[in-house]
């Protein structure tokens, strides 16, 4: 039992904006009142719901490949020494699993979504998530290049494709799906890409990226998955790609979708020399279409490691940079590419990327629809989020940083013209309440009665970067996990999965196809339930009429948590 008293509470899901009030906790949940137990005096502090990272890469085959490829990064990274309760680890661009849990919790984040899981190696992802302490977890299954599904769409078998997707999600024990460069990664298996939304994918007559995108969005909605299709658009990172992004968004009208790392998809120009920001054009469309949510995928200057299922893009980046290149194509499902990268303020392209991420966060006017991410570790490491928060809260600091960019960059970006400054209430939305809602996690991202007691308490400080980097307390599942920078409790979190229903006869169709195209036994393909540590099954109860976007009025949402 725990009472947090005297703090200014920011709980946007319940319309609470900086009021001083007590938060009571019992059995890991927020409750109306408690008698006895510990009291935390939060006078002069601010109280946030624990952070929710809707899109990050922290576990599984791709990230573990990146660890092997970049020992030079690990050598200079922060070291985690063993203590009585904590394990050894290494931070940096590709933190070890234990360090990942400590770093997220240490920053006030308590729920993390691993955004890219191949079914073939989903067992591996779950094993790593098991070794990622403190935080709750969920993951998205890579589906935009799944040949079982594409082959069914090619012959017009929509229903079979839907049951296949449902079976695959259940087999892999994931929460949602993600489409990465739809069709492009499949084409990459023979060294090609898919750059035109409406041109057939190499090897197919009918299926094009648009077919995959539209069908998967519809399938996700019909299966009732709590989180919409998570989409990494075609032509990531390429000058002029804003037209692809807008075309893609038009295909999605009538369905929900979450546009991942939108920064990487908002460029104008037609080559690397005249690349420019198209954040204004993109935000204008986005603002008018409430069926969409997105995360920023912001870039910060410094070292990064780019890790994505987008194989062809990574080959291009390898050719552009001449740095190391890791590639792992996964049979019939997806790919993975890794290239270490350094974003430099002196580089025009990087300067535009840095500005675009912030511009989108400032130009998309509904904070319930854009969330703070860096597409870790692609744009920057997740542990640098406080730097971005600081920039969002201060227009003058942004302008000072813009002045340090090369002159040629200034005519290509809008950042210096933007006056908006985020309030603490809005920061609480983009880091917690908004992503929790977009994920359909009703027990997360708020502090109403019935919510999971995941709470970050910060010393109020005009320097937002300092304030958000070092929370005074972090409470996870009702226990004090971090206190004044020290890890106090390392209790393992849960993993949320969905088990959408499907027609069992789909296995009769899948098994022979699988045996022909895969190299593993069909019976060994699904992830065993016992492999998913702390598994909680979330309901697939989305119905199309539910609206996304800003809440109606300030009425408190005290929906009981789903998933038990």
């Amino acid at each position: 039992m725990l009472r947090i008293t005297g703090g200014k509470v920011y709980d946007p899901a319940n319309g609470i904006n900086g009021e001083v009030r007590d938060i009571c906790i019992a059995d890991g949940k927020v409750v109306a009142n408690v008698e006895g137990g510990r009291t935390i005096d939060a006078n002069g502090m601010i109280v946030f719901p624990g952070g929710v990272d809707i899109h990050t890469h922290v576990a599984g085959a791709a990230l573990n490949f990146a660890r092997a490829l970049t020992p030079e990064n690990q050598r200079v990274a922060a070291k985690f020494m063993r203590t009585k309760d904590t394990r050894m680890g290494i931070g940096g661009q590709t933190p070890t699993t234990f360090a990942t849990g400590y770093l997220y919790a240490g920053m006030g984040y308590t729920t993390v979504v691993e955004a890219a899981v191949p079914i073939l190696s989903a067992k591996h992802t779950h094993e790593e998530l098991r070794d990622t302490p403190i935080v709750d977890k969920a993951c998205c299954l890579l589906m935009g290049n799944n040949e079982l599904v594409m082959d069914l769409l090619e012959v017009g078998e929509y229903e079979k494709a839907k049951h296949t997707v449902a079976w695959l999600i259940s087999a892999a024990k994931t929460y949602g799906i993600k489409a990465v460069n739809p069709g492009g990664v499949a084409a990459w298996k023979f060294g090609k890409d898919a750059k035109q939304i409406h041109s057939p994918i190499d090897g197919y007559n009918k299926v094009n990226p648009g077919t995959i995108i539209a069908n998967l969005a519809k399938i996700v909605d019909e299966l009732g998955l709590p989180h919409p299709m998570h989409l990494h658009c075609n032509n990531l990172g390429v000058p002029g790609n804003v037209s692809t992004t807008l075309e893609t968004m038009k295909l999605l009208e009538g369905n929900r979708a979450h546009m991942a790392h939108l920064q990487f998809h908002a460029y104008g120009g037609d080559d690397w020399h005249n690349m420019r920001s198209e954040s204004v054009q993109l935000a204008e469309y986005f603002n008018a279409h409430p069926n969409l949510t997105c995360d920023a995928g912001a870039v910060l200057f410094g070292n990064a490691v780019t890790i994505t299922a987008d194989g062809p893009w990574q080959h291009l980046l390898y050719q552009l940079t001449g740095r190391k290149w890791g590639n792992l194509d996964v049979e019939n499902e997806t790919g993975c590419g890794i290239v270490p990268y350094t974003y430099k303020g002196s580089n025009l392209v990087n300067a535009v990327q840095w500005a675009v991420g912030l511009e989108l966060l400032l130009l998309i006017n509904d904070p319930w629809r854009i969330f703070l991410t860096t597409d870790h570790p692609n744009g920057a490491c997740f542990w640098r989020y406080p730097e971005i928060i600081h920039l969002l809260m201060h227009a003058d600091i942004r302008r000072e940083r813009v002045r340090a960019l090369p002159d040629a960059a200034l005519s290509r970006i809008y950042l210096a013209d933007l006056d908006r400054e985020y309030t603490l209430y809005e920061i609480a939305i983009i880091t917690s309440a908004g992503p929790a809602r977009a994920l359909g996690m009703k027990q997360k991202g708020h502090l109403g009665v019935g919510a999971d007691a995941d709470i970050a308490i910060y010393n109020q400080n005009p320097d937002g970067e300092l304030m958000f980097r070092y929370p005074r307390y972090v409470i996870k599942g009702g226990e004090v996990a971090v206190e004044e920078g020290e890890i106090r409790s390392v209790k393992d979190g849960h993993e949320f999965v969905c088990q959408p229903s499907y027609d069992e006869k789909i296995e009769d169709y899948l098994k022979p196809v699988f045996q022909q195209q895969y190299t593993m036994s069909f019976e060994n393909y699904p992830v065993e339930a016992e492999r998913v540590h702390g598994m909680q099954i979330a309901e697939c109860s989305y119905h199309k009429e539910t609206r996304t976007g800003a809440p109606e009025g300030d009425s408190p949402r005290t929906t009981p948590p789903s998933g038990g």
Partner: protein
Amino acid sequence: MGGKVSCTLGEVKNRADFILYWGGNPAECHPRHFTKYTIMQKGKFLPEGRKGRTMVLVDIRETMSVKAADIFLQVRPGKDFEVITALRALVKGNRVDTALVEETGLKLEQLQDLVDRMKRCKFGVIFFGMGLSMTRGKHMNSAAVLTLAAEMNAFTKFVAMPMRGHGNVAGADMVLRWTTGYPFGVNLCRGFPRFNPGEFSTVDLLVRGDIDAAFVLGADPGATMPQPGIDTLARVPTIVLDPKVTHTSRLARVHITTSVTGISSPGTAYRMDEVPLPLRPVLKSPYPSDEEVVRRIIAAVDKKTAWLPRPETMSSGVA
């Protein structure tokens, strides 16, 4: 630098029309590699199976695998690096000195023909074995062959993959990477992971005699290490977990018999392409599993005074 450009084995089965084995003898060491994963399979995009694929074998001697190859290139021992370097030059269209190539035991025309075939294929793969990675040049050879495959992607689809040996050695790489950040040879004695192959690799530690105890599981270094290394294992207290009493057990202070992986003990193993597979044990062993015994040793260690590195700096957990 090249990095590593690879795929899972199903991609080879479904797509590879050019398959090169370098310094490996799959016919005897990985007997089902040909039949289950590579040349003999009918793939999604290779319905004609073996006929649709070209197989090239590069090795220093004729092995049983030669029979399966369309082309066999016999390299002089220790000259693999030179051959790979010449291939990389030819791939880029650079001139290569005939005399230099001939020192490798091959002819320039043979290498040019190989490069032409590599560029003509739709999907090429190089599997390399210990004949490349454990002979003169060692990791330099592996890096060179991985770079060759990466550079081929400017022309066509190309990948490379090491032929991992012992059962679940791939799994050890995976687990060490996610827990410590490094794949092998990780030194934890300062309280955080450090990596320096050549300094912290077992053979170097043993030959230098740098350790004062050894815990061996899933290996028999007493049979394979150089003699000075074996002497170290005999000198320090060595503890062995193994289903059999091994050479190492005989020079150890402690041996504990464990159940056999996959036959009696359950769990996970990784294939050479880093795909995890569940084990389905069939026999109930009278012995405990390695996992269980290690856990029991941890519990026994936990009862003693804990070793905590540099306790005064532990407050933030970050060094």
